[in-house]
């Protein structure tokens, strides 16, 4: 049986970007900003991890426009703010979108695994807020790396 929310993959990718769509970037952003990581009403993180492992590279899109910045500038900001950011993109990766996609998917997979590990540690300790977490909880990875609380944006640190 597919994970909750799996039907989102039946949609055209432009649908996924439509601001009003339930599975759009806007919807997932709203979950991240408001700490709404209940996987029972979203797309469970296990499904996200499974998909990250099986992204067909040949079908991967060129999303190099997302990295349209100077990596040295990002490195500087990242260092100043104590907030790790992916900045390994350069002119070479722009010319080879398959490499770029590999880097992005690998980073996403790492974020998902980290979020699941943090959640499972909370389950063991009995302090978890949700039994299943949504895959938008991958933000927990970058939050912890930046010294913030993984699942509560109101708290300053873990």
């Amino acid at each position, binding site marked *: 049986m597919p994970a909750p929310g799996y039907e989102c993959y039946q949609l055209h990718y432009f649908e996924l970007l439509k601001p009003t769509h339930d599975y759009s*970037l806007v919807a997932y952003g709203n979950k991240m900003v408001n700490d709404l990581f209940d996987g029972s009403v979203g797309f469970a993180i296990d499904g996200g991890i499974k998909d*990250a492992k099986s992204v067909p590279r040949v079908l991967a899109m060129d999303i190099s426009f997302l990295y349209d910045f100077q990596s040295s500038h990002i490195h500087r900001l990242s260092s100043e703010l104590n907030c790790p950011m992916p900045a390994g993109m350069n002119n070479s990766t722009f010319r080879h979108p398959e490499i770029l996609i590999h880097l*992005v998917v690998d980073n996403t997979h790492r974020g998902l695994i980290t979020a699941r590990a943090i959640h499972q540690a909370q389950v063991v300790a009995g302090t978890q807020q949700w039994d299943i977490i949504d895959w938008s909880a991958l933000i927990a990875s970058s939050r912890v790396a930046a010294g913030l609380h993984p699942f509560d*944006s109101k708290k300053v640190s873990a």
Partner: protein
Amino acid sequence: MIMGMNELLAETLTLGEKSGIGQQTVYDLVKGELWNAFYSTSTRN
């Protein structure tokens, strides 16, 4: 695609939070840009 964009959004929201402008501000910017991209053709003119 949505997977990669989610990851980048997460990183960007965190950077926004650390920078002091707040993740809500970053989210509003992204939301506005997406909205304009889909429902408007004249915002950049």
